[in-house]
């Protein structure tokens, strides 16, 4: 691929994001809520697109295409299971987070837990668990970009340069105007992701399948249309992803940002449509790649190899689409982790600091977390892949505490802390030691353990005074929605 065209494509996308960030900066007022959740003033379209772009990372166009290339239709089932679960969770929990956020002034999802359980350590533990789990996940985005740019530039841009480009752009988009620049650039990036992948699919289907796509796949690769994953694998992978909308703070924090109920409705609807279309496109590309370039030993190379078969200009548009997917996920994670560390760790442990200092500490954490992710990516550890897979499983350990916060008045801080800490440690250890008792994945055992600990410890301890007021207020206001 021509290096000048490659760099030109990346530069164009970067400039578009910078223009959006520059104008976003003009809207930013003072304070933590302004910087980290845009003062709850984001409209429906931008809320929907930032939610979508944050959720869907480079995994879709690289990982999911590769997974479909290798294992077929079960990959589609896995990804659509995630989508269906998220639609249900958003319809049930988006109004609850939004109402609680507005009523009590929350900025981070873990702050909600600290306040509801009346214990700062609940939020601090949730913030630390998120930090430990999400940094490897964020680093994988940088690693993916490093490898992809290196491959498409024919080695002219080595791994370190590709991952540095993604890290620098993520930093700029998140630091410039906080949530506003992230949300606005995410919106541009969501459209790039969708349009580039759609054009690629159209090109691939018309050029490489003159006999018809459906008949070719059914004749040449019929095995890919059958369900091949063992049931335990499907459950083991689908379960943590099914609750992603609640347990991943970078998406849960977005439930605070819609400016009104109408915007929240548009956010849910927009995400549902985006997710459905994007999933169908990426999995169809996986089936197509299996027929165009069969026999690859490393399935993750299916997309990079497919891009060598299409015109340069289209390949660059898709590359920018994948970069956009990676950066839009990465900058959201960096911003959310910075806000959590400032609010739920620094402010919680040093309550005497004023809001200006709290905001400054949050902003200073943005380059620090970006650098940590970049450094992590440079090691290219095989362990990072394990840690990344562990991320969704580890974050799932927050589920009992989150559900308990909204629905179970008897849920206590001791129950929440012990379930998150013990569940997180046990799942982490099982992943690293590759333990699968009775053939079931660590997340299955972890979530059972976390739920039992949460319920048992809560019943043995005294619930906080705030619990009744919080649960009754939020649920009553949700009933008033109808």
């Amino acid at each position, binding site marked *: 691929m021509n290096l000048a065209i490659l760099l030109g494509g990346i530069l164009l996308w970067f400039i578009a994001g910078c223009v959006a960030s520059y104008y976003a900066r003009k809207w930013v007022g003072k304070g933590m809520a302004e910087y980290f959740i845009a003062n709850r003033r984001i409209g429906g379209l931008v809320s929907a697109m930032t939610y979508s772009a944050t959720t869907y990372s480079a995994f879709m166009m690289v990982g999911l295409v590769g997974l479909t290339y290798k294992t077929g*239709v079960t990959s589609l089932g896995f990804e659509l299971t995630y*989508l269906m679960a998220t639609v249900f969770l958003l319809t*049930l929990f988006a109004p609850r987070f939004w109402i609680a956020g507005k009523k009590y002034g929350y900025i981070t999802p873990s702050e909600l837990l600290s306040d509801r359980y009346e214990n700062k350590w609940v939020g601090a533990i949730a913030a630390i668990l998120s930090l430990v789990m999400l940094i490897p996940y964020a680093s994988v985005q940088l690693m993916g970009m490093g490898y992809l740019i290196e491959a498409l530039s024919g080695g002219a841009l080595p791994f370190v340069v590709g991952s540095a480009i993604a890290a620098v752009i993520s930093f700029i988009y998140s630091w410039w105007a906080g949530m506003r620049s992230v949300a606005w650039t995410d919106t541009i990036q969501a459209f790039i992701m969708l349009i580039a992948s759609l054009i690629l699919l159209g090109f691939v289907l018309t050029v490489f399948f003159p006999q018809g796509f459906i008949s070719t796949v059914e004749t040449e690769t019929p095995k890919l249309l059958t369900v091949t994953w063992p049931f335990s694998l499907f459950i083991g992978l689908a379960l943590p992803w099914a609750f992603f909308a609640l347990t991943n703070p970078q998406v849960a924090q977005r439930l605070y940002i819609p400016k009104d109920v109408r915007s929240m409705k548009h956010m849910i609807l927009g995400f549902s449509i985006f997710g459905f279309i994007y*999933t169908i496109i990426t999995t169809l590309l996986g089936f197509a790649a299996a027929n165009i370039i069969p026999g690859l030993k490393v399935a993750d190379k299916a997309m990079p190899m497919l891009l060598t078969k299409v015109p340069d200009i289209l390949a660059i548009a898709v590359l920018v689409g994948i970069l956009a997917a990676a950066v839009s996920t990465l900058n959201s994670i960096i911003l959310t982790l910075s806000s959590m560390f400032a609010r739920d760790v620094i402010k919680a442990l040093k309550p005497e600091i004023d809001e200006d200092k709290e905001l400054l500490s949050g902003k200073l954490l943005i380059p620090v977390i970006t650098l940590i992710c970049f450094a992590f990516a440079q090691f290219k550890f095989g362990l990072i892949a394990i840690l990344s897979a562990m991320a969704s499983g580890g974050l799932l350990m927050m589920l009992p505490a989150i559900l308990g916060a909204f629905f179970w008045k008897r849920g206590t801080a001791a129950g929440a802390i012990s379930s998150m800490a013990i569940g997180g440690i046990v799942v982490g250890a099982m992943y690293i030691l590759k333990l699968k008792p009775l053939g079931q994945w660590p997340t299955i055992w972890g979530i059972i353990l976390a739920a039992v600990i949460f319920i048992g410890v809560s019943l043995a301890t005294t619930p906080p005074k705030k619990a009744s007021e919080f649960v009754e*207020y939020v649920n009553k206001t949700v009933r008033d929605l109808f």
Partner: protein
Amino acid sequence: MSSKETIWVLFALLVAVLDLAVPYTVLKNVAKFSGPYLYWTALALIVVVFGSVYISRWRSEITLEGGE
């Protein structure tokens, strides 16, 4: 939880069962796009459409007592 939410949660549980049970039994070895592929796609589309109908019933204006 209101009765509408309870019905919605029961529908979600039904979808969870259908999402797993049908592809892993009767459709498992159907090597056609009209097999598991169409089934999962149709099920997801139904959830998206029903979800949009569900949220369309929310009032656009609500009063938050004592909010910011």
